C-alpha cells in the first residue's frame, strides 16, 4: 500500500468515525434543498438587450435610442433576424431581445395594431420577471412617444420566457445551493481538518516524515472530493425528484464543473488552514471569508447585474460566480462546452491555481 493510499484511508476513517459531523454533512444538502423554497426579490440594471428589426425606420431607431439611454438596459446591437441571437442567449451574454415587426413606423402611422415580441432569459426566474417588467414599461413610453397619449393602445406585447417558461424558482436556488453545500463540505471541512491536525500536533509528525507536502495534501483532500461530489448529486437528485428540476444539458459537463469547483474550494480551505491557528478561527474564517461571498456575490441571491461596480469586480474572483453560470447554463438552458468555454476555463484556472498555492503554502514548513 502506498503512503498516499494510507493517508486517504486514515482521512476516510476520521470522516466515518465522527458520526455526528458526517450525518450533518450528508443531510445538509437534502435539508437545504427542501427548505430553500423561497425566492428573493431582485432589482436589475444594465440588462444586455438586442433589438430585432427587419426594416429599420424612424420608429425603430427611436426605440433603439431609448434603450441605449436607459440605465436599465445595455443595447447589444440591432440585428435583422432572431436566429443571430441564439448563441448569445445560451452563453448568457444576451438576456433579452425585442422583436419588432416589418415596417413598424409605416403601420403605426396608418393606425394599424402591431405586435412586438419580447424574449426574456428566465433561467433565473426572479430576474426574468423583473426584466419583463422593465421592457413593458419602456415599450409603453415608446408607444406614447410614437402615437401620442390620446389614442387607443396599438401595441401589443407578446412575452416569451426563454429556458424557464414557468419561472420555476427551483431553477433559481438549486445551482446556488450546490455551490453553498460544496463550499461548506470542501472548503470549510478541509480547513477544519487541517487546522485540527495542526492543533493536535499530528501535522508536525506528517511534515517530519519523508512525505512530500503534495502527498499530504492529496491524502487529506481526496475523501472530501468524494463527499463533495456525493453532496452535489444529492442536491441534483432531490431537486429533480421533488421539484422536477430540468437537466437540459450534458450531465458530464455539470460533473466536471462540480469537480473543478470542489478543487477550487479545497484550495481555499487549505489556504485558510495555513493561516488559522485554531479550529474555531478556521470556522469563522470559512464562514466570513467564503460562505458569505458565495451567498451574496456569486449571483445566487443578488443578480450580478444588480451589484454596485466595486462589488461586481470582487465577484469576478469568486469561484462560485463562474460555477453558477455554468450550472444554470447546463441545467436550464442546455448550454454546451462551446457556449460556456470561457466560464469553464476561468473555473479550471482558479481550481489549479488555488490548489497549487495551497500546497505551496502548506509546504512552507510551519514554525
Amino acid at each position, binding site marked *: 500500500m502506498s503512503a498516499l493510499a*494510507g493517508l486517504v484511508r486514515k482521512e476516510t476513517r476520521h470522516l466515518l468515525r465522527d458520526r455526528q459531523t458526517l450525518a450533518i454533512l450528508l443531510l445538509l444538502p437534502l435539508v437545504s434543498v427542501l427548505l430553500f423554497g423561497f425566492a428573493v426579490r431582485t432589482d436589475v440594471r444594465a440588462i444586455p438587450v438586442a433589438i430585432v428589426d427587419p426594416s429599420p425606420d424612424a420608429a425603430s431607431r427611436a426605440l433603439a435610442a431609448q434603450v441605449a439611454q436607459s440605465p436599465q438596459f445595455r443595447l447589444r446591437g440591432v440585428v435583422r433576424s432572431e436566429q443571430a441571437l441564439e448563441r448569445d442567449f445560451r452563453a448568457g451574454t444576451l438576456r433579452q431581445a425585442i422583436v419588432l415587426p416589418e415596417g413598424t413606423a409605416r403601420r403605426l402611422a396608418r393606425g394599424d395594431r402591431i405586435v412586438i415580441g419580447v424574449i426574456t432569459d428566465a433561467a433565473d426566474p426572479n430576474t426574468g420577471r423583473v426584466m419583463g417588467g422593465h421592457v413593458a414599461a419602456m415599450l409603453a413610453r415608446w408607444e406614447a412617444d410614437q402615437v401620442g397619449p390620446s389614442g387607443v393602445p396599438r401595441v401589443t406585447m407578446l412575452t416569451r420566457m426563454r429556458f424557464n417558461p414557468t419561472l420555476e424558482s427551483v431553477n433559481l436556488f438549486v445551482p446556488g445551493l450546490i455551490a453553498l453545500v460544496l463550499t461548506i463540505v470542501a472548503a470549510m471541512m478541509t480547513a477544519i481538518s487541517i487546522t485540527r491536525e495542526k492543533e493536535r500536533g499530528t501535522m508536525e509528525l506528517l511534515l517530519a516524515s519523508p512525505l512530500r507536502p503534495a502527498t499530504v495534501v492529496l491524502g487529506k483532500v481526496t475523501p472530501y472530493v468524494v463527499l463533495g461530489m456525493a453532496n452535489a448529486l444529492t442536491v441534483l437528485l432531490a431537486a429533480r425528484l421533488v421539484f422536477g428540476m430540468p437537466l437540459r444539458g450534458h450531465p458530464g459537463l455539470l460533473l466536471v464543473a462540480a469537480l473543478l469547483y470542489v478543487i477550487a474550494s479545497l484550495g481555499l480551505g487549505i489556504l485558510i488552514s495555513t493561516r488559522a491557528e485554531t479550529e474555531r478561527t478556521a470556522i469563522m474564517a470559512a464562514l466570513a471569508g467564503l460562505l458569505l461571498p458565495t451567498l451574496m456575490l456569486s449571483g445566487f441571491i443578488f443578480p450580478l447585474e444588480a451589484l454596485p461596480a466595486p462589488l461586481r469586480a470582487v465577484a469576478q474572483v469568486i469561484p462560485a460566480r463562474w460555477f453558477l453560470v455554468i450550472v444554470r447554463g447546463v441545467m436550464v438552458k442546455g448550454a454546451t462546452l462551446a457556449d460556456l468555454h470561457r466560464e469553464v476555463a476561468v473555473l479550471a484556472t482558479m481550481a489549479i491555481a488555488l490548489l497549487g498555492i495551497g500546497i505551496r503554502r502548506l509546504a512552507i514548513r510551519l*514554525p
Partner: protein
Amino acid sequence: MTGPAIVADGLTRRFGAFTAVDAVSFAVGRGEVFGFLGANGAGKTTAIRMLIGLLPPTAGEATVAGASITSDPEGVRRRIGYMSQRFSLYDDLTVRENVALFGTIYGLRPAAIDARREILLGRIGLAHARDALVRQLPLGWKQQLALMVALLHEPEVVFLDEPTGGVDPITRRRFWELIYATAASGTTVLVTTHYLDEAEYCDRLSIMVDGRIAAIGTPGEVRATWGAATLDEVFLRLTRPGAAA
C-alpha cells in the same frame, strides 16, 4: 555508517531581528543518549525543528545520520524518528491503524509493519490493546506508544521533544528504560526535558541559554565545570544569573 550521528556546525536561525538559535555547534555520537536542556524559549525546539528538516537554518549546517539538513532534508526525515512535545497520534484511530499509517508513510511493507508492531507493542506490554482506539488508552501508554511509532521504521536517530511531560513517575521511569533499550540497540537518542533528574540519565547533555549552548559534556563534567553538586544548581545559575550564589 560510521562517524557521529549528529553534527551541528554554526547552526543559526533568526526570525526577523530575533535570533532564536545562535551559531550552535555540537556533535552526538552513535548510540548516545544526548540530553538537550534549556529554559522555555531558550531555542531548543527551534534547534530540533532544524535538525529534523522541518525548518531551514538561516546560517550554518548540520548533518543528521549522514544527511545534510540543508541539501537533503528529505533524506534526513527518512532516517530519523520524531516524537513531538504534544502527544500526537490519531486518537480516533486504533493502535493498529496508527501503526499501519506511519508504517506506510515510511514505506514499510504490510508484513514488515505487522512484525514490527508485534515486537514494539510487546516491548511496552500493549499487545492486547492493538484494536483499541488510541483515545481509550491512559496518557502514559499513549506516550509510550508514540515512542514506539517513532521507532517503527528503525531510524538511525530519534528526536524526543519533552516525551515525559505530564506522566506519573512510574511511567517516566519506564520511559527511560525504553530510551536506554533504544540506545543500546544502536539508535541515537536526542531528548529534551524539563526534569533535571532525568538529565542525569543522559550519556551527555547540553544546556541552551538564549540561543547558545552554555554548557556541554557528561553530567559529571558539567557539574565539575561549574563546581555544583547537582545539575539543578548549574541550570539555575546559567538560566538565572545571580539567583544562585
